[in-house]
């Protein structure tokens, strides 16, 4: 090793602040990520997106794996379920998973739910939602009805189809 490399003390330049400027940010980043991991391990969710607790919430987010996991755990995908605020929009709704996937505009998940038989109920409200929010799945739902030219907002679509 050359004398340059065996330098054991910081120079006045380093002491003037350079060392701190170089050292502190990456250490803080490391500590922040570590704290996040520890917090998560003990159940802190303050910095996490809301997690789906019902199949309908998972479907509203378009999370297929979580949808299937919750069905496997025993939730009935044909039942009305509660969807909390901020899963679809600021409102809260009572929806079946298929309807939640339609309102969330997740066409692939709609088709997956139909494929696994998670839609054994009267689908007229779902078709109504699809006409207003996701017309490309109308044929999958067996409905050839007319469609809305522009996807309606979720709350408006919910109000218009509430009677079904």
């Amino acid at each position: 090793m050359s004398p340059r490399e065996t330098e054991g003390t910081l120079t006045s330049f380093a002491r003037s602040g350079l060392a701190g400027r170089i050292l502190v940010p990456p250490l803080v980043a490391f500590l922040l990520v570590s704290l996040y991991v520890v917090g998560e391990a003990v159940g802190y969710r303050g910095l996490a997106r809301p997690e789906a607790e019902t199949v309908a919430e998972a479907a509203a987010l378009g999370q297929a794996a979580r949808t299937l996991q919750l069905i496997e755990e025993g939730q009935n995908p044909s039942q009305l379920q509660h969807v909390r605020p901020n899963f679809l929009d600021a409102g809260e709704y009572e929806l079946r998973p298929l309807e939640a996937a339609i309102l969330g505009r997740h066409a692939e998940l709609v088709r997956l739910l139909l494929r696994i038989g998670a839609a054994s109920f009267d689908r007229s409200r779902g078709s109504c939602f699809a006409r207003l929010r996701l017309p490309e799945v109308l044929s999958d739902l067996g409905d050839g009805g007319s469609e809305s030219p522009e996807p309606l907002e979720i709350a408006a679509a919910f109000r218009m189809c509430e009677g079904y």
Partner: protein
Amino acid sequence: MITDPGRRYQRVAYGYAAAVACLMATFLLAIPVQLSDSFTEFISVHGHPLSQVIAAEFYNGTYFRPFRRALIKIVYDVSGGHYYGAFRGFQALQVLVLLLLIVRMLRVRSRAALVALPLGLAIVVGIHTFAGAVVEGLPVNHFLTILICCAAAMNIADAKRTRLTDAAAVALLVYAMLTIESGLLLWVIFVAAYAVGYRGVSRTALIVLTLCVAAYFVGRFVLIGGAPPGLNERSAGFGFSVLSPDELVRRFGGNPIPFYAYNVLSAISCVLFAEPRGGVWTFVGGLLRGRPEPWQFVNVLTSTATTLLIARYAATRLTNWRARQFDEADRFVIIFLAVLPLNALLAGGYEKDVIMSPAGLFYGAAAYFVFRERLSGVSAVSIAPAVALLLAVGWSVRFVGIHESLRARALSVREEWAYYDDWVREQPRPMPLTPEEQAIKQHLYDDAVLRAPRTPQPSLGVAERLFDFTQ
């Protein structure tokens, strides 16, 4: 009790590297074995002896990677059916080994060296070329394997020369170059290290290493009759978009040289300036459209400023280099300058950030030494405190960003498995599975979809726009 301060710094450095690796491991262990590029690998190695797996890859058309699947096969057999834990655990172990080898090669034996280490590791881990080595499972990520080989090569080159170091150098090169093409860079590292004064590998061993590389090319292109990948192999970035294989053939089929040259230059620029990415000028495109993303500014500005610092350092040391006077920092900067263009040649066929990961590793090491020299007060390169702070903050953001990407990857892999039936339908050939293969598929599906640990996605508001989720 450790009385030698040098050793004390070294121990702290190893401890910090291990902590960084453990932190990343917690994110890696949340990612199930992926469907694309992993499930098919399992099917390929299942039920075949190791020798057959290796032999099959000797004659695999355009690619010559006989050891690539060997490591997958070994981990697969050792897993005893616990694929998720085995493969993700192996990747986490690889990250730990890599970071410890990096700390060893950086020779952290002074306070200045220790102070610069967190930033050095933030650069090595946070650089976009490293992301592909951890975000993808594959299911054994061979780019990560090659990075370990590169760091091991530097440690061998820096060791006290014995017959063992010579033999280890040859074995490492043979293993690496028969794993993926990037392994050929080990030859560059050994030769460049010798040229700047490292003597862990003898001149005789260098000749043997050179003969090994020659044998590789003769074996691959003459004896086996392999051909380099053609334009019709895959899509590739060009300019502001990604061209399909058909488009590539139409535009460059008559003369592919301009396309290859573009890729080589893009690959060099990708490491130095974080632009283009995968051959596509996303930041420039964003600027032209007036909508660049904040993370693009972070990436491009930190990389460009760091490159300028390395360039200024090189310029101030040029006289010493001409007189063949090298210290530790000089050596790493020169080795980086040697690895960069030759690494870029390997990206000639198509530019992908992770192909440049060896150059990215030495880029991080070179930057580390520039900062360390400045902290030691012996470097001729001055760094304004504000610039140092901005750089450190920028690289720290990228360090956090890689962890965010890993968390997002956990979700996307789960989603990929949920749509398994769609994936099968999209395959170019039908994929009938034997009952055993069906059982493997079901096991992986259950791991990813039904038994997967809950991995909450961070929600950091506007701060998330600082992170590069494209990696």
